[in-house]
């Protein structure tokens, strides 16, 4: 991965000082510390900070076509560039061995439709000087970030928003409607961001910028059907070759590749393919002192099974607290959990060991139906068919054994917690109602004048935003769709993914998010994904003879990190200072009296619930975010 930044359509045709793009690139130097490159024309200035991975000598950007009428800066990887060259571009006069040049060559051959040929993760700026068009293109699922700020027909774009805020190009203010999305769904609804004026190019979309227009086009989306017929064996065989190729093409690199190992099913599956292909591999894991969160036992078993060179980082409370402010600087958004911080500590270890690339298992839960929230929706729908049943809601108890409330042996509580809007199975957010109820309690801490600006009818907003209708896909696939369009790009792949990896100049590669795998899974009948309440059934079938039984049979454990317990360890109470009355008043978002009571509860050691941890982390991280970006 790399960083890109630049300006399209200078206002009045007057280029700003070269220093603007230089400053924009300097702010994202962590994404591309190896080389810088620039292209300056009559209309555009495109900049590139490179993390060299493929064609170390020749791959510096921008890359051009022969007559230099097409220029490209690009963050990401095109994994099928070798096949594209041999299939479509055998006569093209390449001057590098890089995947970037394939973008230019394919564009010349197919025009903007070239995107559909790409298999990879990418944020691309392509300028065609003959047509006087510039394209900002983002990969299908949102692995690589791409933000922009439009002022008239001038556009500033960058891999991270801090570049757009450079040199006061924009006075940063908080986007309150987007904050409302954030406290319901953990992320603003794309293309909005938490900054007024800054948008992202949505996953699966591209912007076409001309001198007098800016237009957005969608070229890809998630779809679901049950159209793949065949026996379990036949389907498993097809998936096997697809996943094997998805892993193999993600090994294309001129620097060594390592892998993350969580101890769960998904990272273990990736290791099984690497092992099959004889890759001698280093693995990297996180461990925690809290037994509930620690997966070390499984990590060691998998590492030993596949004979990897294993490395781990113990995410101590103090380390999490010390790195929390820096985490927010990189995520550019507040957080509901501290979970991203240990991921930054892990990528630091990867970097220190001399690696620039890791394969990782994100995406499998969204694509193959692994999350508990999908089960929750399935059980609630099952229960809604007989709301008086005492047994049906009891199934929910199996879902969250790690949550304290399941110790309470009363179905009445389950009914109260999960029975909300039980019969609204056509709601796009049917699966999310319980979680959103907890996370949106942050709104109770907002000052009244701020709360009044929030639009809390999130179901309506989601309906307007997404091109699916209620009932189109059924409860399970709708939940998969919403997860894949909101939390996956907005949190998992960004705050917990790209940003934490790139903070230490490490690129993540995601075999489960190969679009061929996504499309294959999208066409499978649901019973192959969630069989009864057995999640990721087809994946388990696929690897049942290849991975340790302990991993295959273990209950799913979501990745979590300690929140309040860790944040209380900050040096000289540095983090608590952000929650002082004066700091709260300065930002004019939260009610200082309520925040004070929450802090007191946290200090007393009584704030143990999921809700308290979430409230504390969200309010603290919002205060840090305001301090670093809005009031800076």
């Amino acid at each position, binding site marked *: 991965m790399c960083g890109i930044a630049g300006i399209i359509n200078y206002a009045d045709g007057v280029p700003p000082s070269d220093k603007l793009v230089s400053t924009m690139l300097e702010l994202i130097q962590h994404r591309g510390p190896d080389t810088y490159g620039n292209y300056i024309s009559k209309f555009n200035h495109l900049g590139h900070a490179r993390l060299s991975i493929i064609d170390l000598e020749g791959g510096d950007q921008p890359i051009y076509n022969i007559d230099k009428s097409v220029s490209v800066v690009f963050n990401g990887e095109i994994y099928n560039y070798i096949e594209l060259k041999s299939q479509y571009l055998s006569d093209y006069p390449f001057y590098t061995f890089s995947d970037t040049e394939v973008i230019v060559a394919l564009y010349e051959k197919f025009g903007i439709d070239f995107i559909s040929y790409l298999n990879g993760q990418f944020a691309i700026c392509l300028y065609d000087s003959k047509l006087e068009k510039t394209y900002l293109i983002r990969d299908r699922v949102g692995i690589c970030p791409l933000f922009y700020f439009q002022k008239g027909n001038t556009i500033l774009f960058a891999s991270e928003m801090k570049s757009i805020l450079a040199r006061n190009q924009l006075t940063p203010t908080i986007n309150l409607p987007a904050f409302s999305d954030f406290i319901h769904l953990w992320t603003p609804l794309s293309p909005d961001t938490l900054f007024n004026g800054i948008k992202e190019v949505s996953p699966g979309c591209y912007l076409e910028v001309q001198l007098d227009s800016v237009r957005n086009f969608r070229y890809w989306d998630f779809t679901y059907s049950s159209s793949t017929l065949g026996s379990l064996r036949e389907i498993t065989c097809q998936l096997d070759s697809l996943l094997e190729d998805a892993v193999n093409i993600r090994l294309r690199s001129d620097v060594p590749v390592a892998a993350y190992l969580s101890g769960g099913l998904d990272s273990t599956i990736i290791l099984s393919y690497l092992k099959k292909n004889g890759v001698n591999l280093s693995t990297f894991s996180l461990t925690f002192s809290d037994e509930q969160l620690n997966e070390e036992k499984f990590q060691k078993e998998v590492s030993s099974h596949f004979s990897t060179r294993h490395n781990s980082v113990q995410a101590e409370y103090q380390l999490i607290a010390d790195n929390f402010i820096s985490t927010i600087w990189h995520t550019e958004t507040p957080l509901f959990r501290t979970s991203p911080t240990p991921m930054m500590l892990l990528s630091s270890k990867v970097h220190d060991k001399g690696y620039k690339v890791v394969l990782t298992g994100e995406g499998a839960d969204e694509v193959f139906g692994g999350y508990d929230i999908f089960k929750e929706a399935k059980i609630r729908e099952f229960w809604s068919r007989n709301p008086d049943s005492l047994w049906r809601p009891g199934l929910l108890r199996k879902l969250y054994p790690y949550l304290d409330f399941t110790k309470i042996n*009363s179905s009445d509580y389950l009914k109260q917690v999960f029975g909300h809007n039980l019969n609204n199975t056509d709601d796009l957010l049917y699966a999310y109602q319980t979680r959103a109820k907890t996370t949106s309690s942050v709104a109770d801490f907002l000052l009244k004048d701020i709360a009044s600006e929030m639009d809390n009818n999130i179901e309506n907003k989601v309906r307007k935003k997404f091109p699916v209708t209620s009932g189109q896909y059924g409860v399970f696939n709708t939940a998969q769709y919403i997860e894949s369009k909101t939390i996956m790009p907005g949190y998992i792949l960004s705050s917990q993914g790209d940003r934490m990896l790139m903070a230490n100049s490490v690129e993540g590669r995601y075999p489960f998010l190969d679009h061929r795998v996504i499309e294959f899974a999208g066409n499978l009948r649901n019973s192959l994904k969630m069989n009864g309440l057995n999640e990721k059934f087809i994946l388990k079938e696929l690897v049942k003879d290849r991975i340790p039984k302990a991993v295959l049979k273990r209950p799913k454990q979501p990745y979590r990190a300690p929140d309040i317990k860790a944040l209380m360890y900050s040096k000289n109470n540095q983090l608590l200072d952000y929650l002082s009355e004066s700091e709260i008043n300065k930002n004019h978002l939260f009610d200082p*009296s*309520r925040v004070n009571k929450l802090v007191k509860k946290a200090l007393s050691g009584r704030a143990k619930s999921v809700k308290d941890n979430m409230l504390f982390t969200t309010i603290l991280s919002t205060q840090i975010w305001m301090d670093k970006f809005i009031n800076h």
Partner: protein
Amino acid sequence: MFKDKLRLFILENFLFTEDQSELEDDDSFMEKEIIDSTGILEVIEYLEEECGIKIEDEEMIPDNLDSINKVINFVNQKQKN
């Protein structure tokens, strides 16, 4: 009076306020989203410490614990027994 103490505990620890108007004696903790699923355990812990009672598994039901009045009736009953 224990009822006032309990009310203050709920207000300060779950609503994070001292504003008495935010909680009626018959308000359902769960329906009004005052206490979430995990918070019930905090209430139980508090009652056991403050009232010197032991709450059995089968007593952890909304009928006993889901409003100020329900809790007070339940605690009174327990202490009588």
